[in-house]
């Protein structure tokens, strides 16, 4: 318990608070712009957790890609969606229940997995965790995962092209 009251412990609590608080805003707020800002705050907290795990590269990537690119992309989507000043319909309890159950199920499965896995500290497995090593692993041992991710990106790009194919204003004709 005393560990939590050291400088590192306090900043860890702050980061966890940021992550969870941001997540609650992201899910709970009724204004869609507040949701995005909450998501950004939460992802910032996740970057902090990466820092705590002694992985500054991943922390910076988290901020650069998730806060910098994904949240901004979501803002783009908001601009394309319906106007914000319109009154929003109240939430349906069925939908809330479904979302809660779905998220709860994912949480339970993940928690069980975390509990079941015998975690080996990174230092005990290898002492070389440089970016070069990560890159090497991505192109050899984890090539399948890498390719699967690129396939998802390809599908997303194709979808964007299909959506944009007709261009703006040509729909009426």
């Amino acid at each position, binding site marked *: 318990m005393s560990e939590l009251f050291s400088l590192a412990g306090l900043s860890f609590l702050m980061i966890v608070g940021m992550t969870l608080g941001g997540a609650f805003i992201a899910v709970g707020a009724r*204004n869609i*712009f*507040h949701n995005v*800002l909450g998501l*950004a705050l939460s992802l910032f907290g996740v970057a902090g957790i990466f820092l705590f795990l002694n992985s*500054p*590269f991943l922390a*910076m*990537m988290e*901020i*650069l890609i998730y*806060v*910098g*690119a994904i*949240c*901004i*992309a979501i*803002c*783009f989507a908001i*601009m394309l969606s319906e106007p914000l000043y319109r009154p929003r319909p109240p939430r349906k309890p069925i939908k809330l229940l479904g979302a809660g159950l779905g998220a709860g199920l994912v949480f339970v499965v993940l928690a069980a997995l975390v509990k079941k896995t015998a975690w080996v500290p990174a230092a005990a497995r290898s002492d070389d965790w440089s*970016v070069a090593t990560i890159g090497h692993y991505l192109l050899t041992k984890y090539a399948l995962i890498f390719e699967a991710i690129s396939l998802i990106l390809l599908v997303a790009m194709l979808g964007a092209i299909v959506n944009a194919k007709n261009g703006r204003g040509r729909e009426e004709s």
Partner: protein
Amino acid sequence: MQFFLAEGARLGLGLIGVISLVAVNALFLIWMERKVSAHIQLRPGPMEVGFHGALQTIADALKLIGKELITPEDVDKLIYLLAPIVMFLPVLVSFLVIPFSPTLLIRDLNVGVLLIFAFSTLTVLAILMAGWASNNKYSLLGAIRSVAQNVAYEIPLLLTAMSIILMAGSFQPSVIVSQQAKVWNIFVQPLAFLLFIICGTAETNRAPFDIPEAESELVAGFHTEYSGMRFAIFFLAEYTNMFIVSAVATIFFLGGWHGPFLPPVVWFLLKVYALIFLMMWFRWTFPRLRFDQLITFAWKILIPLALLNLIVTAFVLKLVR
């Protein structure tokens, strides 16, 4: 205890140094911009307060401090107040890793360059917050333009940065600088330098890329509704961003602190201010682009060129090594 005292002193001194640098730099740059623009347009510029108007911005700053902070009705209050802070935060963080000389730097992180790029994306979020929370159509339009522009220009910026990082094999600013002791990167990568300066000018929302705050169309863009010191903070952040972009360009292409005779810090600052002068020169030479021209330029010209540059760099490096 000793450790905490030493680290505390280091952090405190660093913070005081950075904040003084930010303030003095902004005061100087605003005066410099007025003088440069004046001389380009064949007029003298501010002349009354101090020697050749040198104290003019201090007088302006005092006026801004004395002004009332107006919060318009129907703004999204929390976000409206947070936006200037979010705008200023990444500016302060970036100074953490800029190496002014081999010894004068606060932290020599091995992800230093990434840190600057990562936190500079927050600026877009701050502009969006300011524009959206203001509840004003001009603000919102400025913010939307800013987001589209920054997203488009960030891609070639990061791609050109990647080609430099590939050459250096490191994200650490001091390593990138010390590898340019003999030949500056600008002679090896002239195209990358050109792309970087164009994208840097666009990222700082400066003319000819200043459509987020185009005064002839949008009043003052995303900061229309801000007054007094809140407006001043946006201004401060803009001029400090110019300094940071120029500092990164100096680290990447102009050999950082390297140079004969003069001390390293002087060389570094000289190069940075020369680049800032270049950006001011752009502003008073080129007309503002139309929005669609601006976006087309980024996606159809800059990004293919940056990709080509990266691929050629990778090939040449593979052949040489």
